[in-house]
């Protein structure tokens, strides 16, 4: 880890701050416009989930450089209610808030690696990575 910065998600405008940060880092790393859009959209989804379900949390952006491969890592963390059934929320069209139900599965498809850890009642941590090709 050589670089990390963090945005606290408390209100709706923090979502914009988080994805702005993500876009800037993605640009610095040399991602193309399509991947920049993918990364910002994924951050937007994860940050919005924090805002909607947990109330508050944080989104951190990390630059990665492993074996000469660089990438961008998003860590979205909250101490919210947690997810009861992770398999279910990764299904397309499942929603508890009347949305499209495409947020988490969509974010997974937008990124290369995607990992959820969640303990009901304690919180959720999502780590997603996009590699520079």
């Amino acid at each position, binding site marked *: 880890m050589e670089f990390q910065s963090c945005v606290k998600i408390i209100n709706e405008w923090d979502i914009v701050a988080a994805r702005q940060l993500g876009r800037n880092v993605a640009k610095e790393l040399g991602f193309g416009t399509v991947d920049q859009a993918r990364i910002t959209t994924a951050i937007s989804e994860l940050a919005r989930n924090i805002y909607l379900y947990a109330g508050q949390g944080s989104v951190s952006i990390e630059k990665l450089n492993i074996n000469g491969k660089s990438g961008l890592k998003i860590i979205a963390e909250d101490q919210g209610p947690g997810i009861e059934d992770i398999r279910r929320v990764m299904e397309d069209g499942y929603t508890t808030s009347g949305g499209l139900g495409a947020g988490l599965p969509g974010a997974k498809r*937008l990124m290369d690696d995607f990992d959820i850890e969640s303990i009901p009642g304690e919180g959720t941590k999502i780590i997603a990575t996009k590699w520079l090709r």
Partner: protein
Amino acid sequence: MNQLVYDFIKQNQDYILTEWMGIMKESTDERLIKVVSDRMFTQTSSEFIDMIITNVDSKNKEFTLKLSDFAEKVVQLGWPLTFVNEGLHKFTLIVINGMVEKGLVTPDNQVNLVNHLDKWATPINNEIVNIYTQTWERTVSMQKIALQELSAPLIPVLEGITVMPLIGTIDTERAKQIMENLLTGVVKHRSEVVLIDITGVPVVDTMVAHHIIQAAEAVRLVGAKCILCGIRPEIAQTIVNLGINLNEVITKNTLKKGIEVALELTSRKIVKVEG
């Protein structure tokens, strides 16, 4: 005001001013130097010190008026709040140090003097912070209103055809306005086709898409058709990745194409006049 402090400040006004300006110039960061010219700095500084000194002997009400005038000026100049606060703090320090040098401070009255100066400086400090926040709050609320006015305009371009160009981030508040303006506008302008242009929307995530789908559905219910245009290639790819189904909405990549389709839908076309 303690007579001792009062006399000292009155007698050493010039000394305090030069001392203060020297210290402040040293301790300010580059950010300030950039925004303020040298002459402006000197002028405003002496005004600041003058004002503090008048507080020593003027009535409270008069001073508050002066202070708010000054604070507004400083805000306009773009002086950081920390600078003004620091300035006040440095002022009391100079006064105390100066008094120590002159031998006016004795172990007996030391605590008393410091307490006294503190009691005098704190209300000024609070007032400055107060005025600053008020000015900022006013600016922010003005901008909020300005932004709201810009947020969801609906423009009738041809008979039966209206365009809603969207620029910038869409949040829940704005999404609500888009929906409202769209529906009232469609009825008011008797639109048959409404074009929503999202060229200027930086990120289309599921929430934005959801609002667009809902808006299109609502437009359909009031008897008009909705065309979504300005979908950039990268946005198209993220929408596909997200797995969002926009089949119910007619989509075009530019507003120009959208208008062509809108004309087609209302059985019209643009012809070049011959001759």
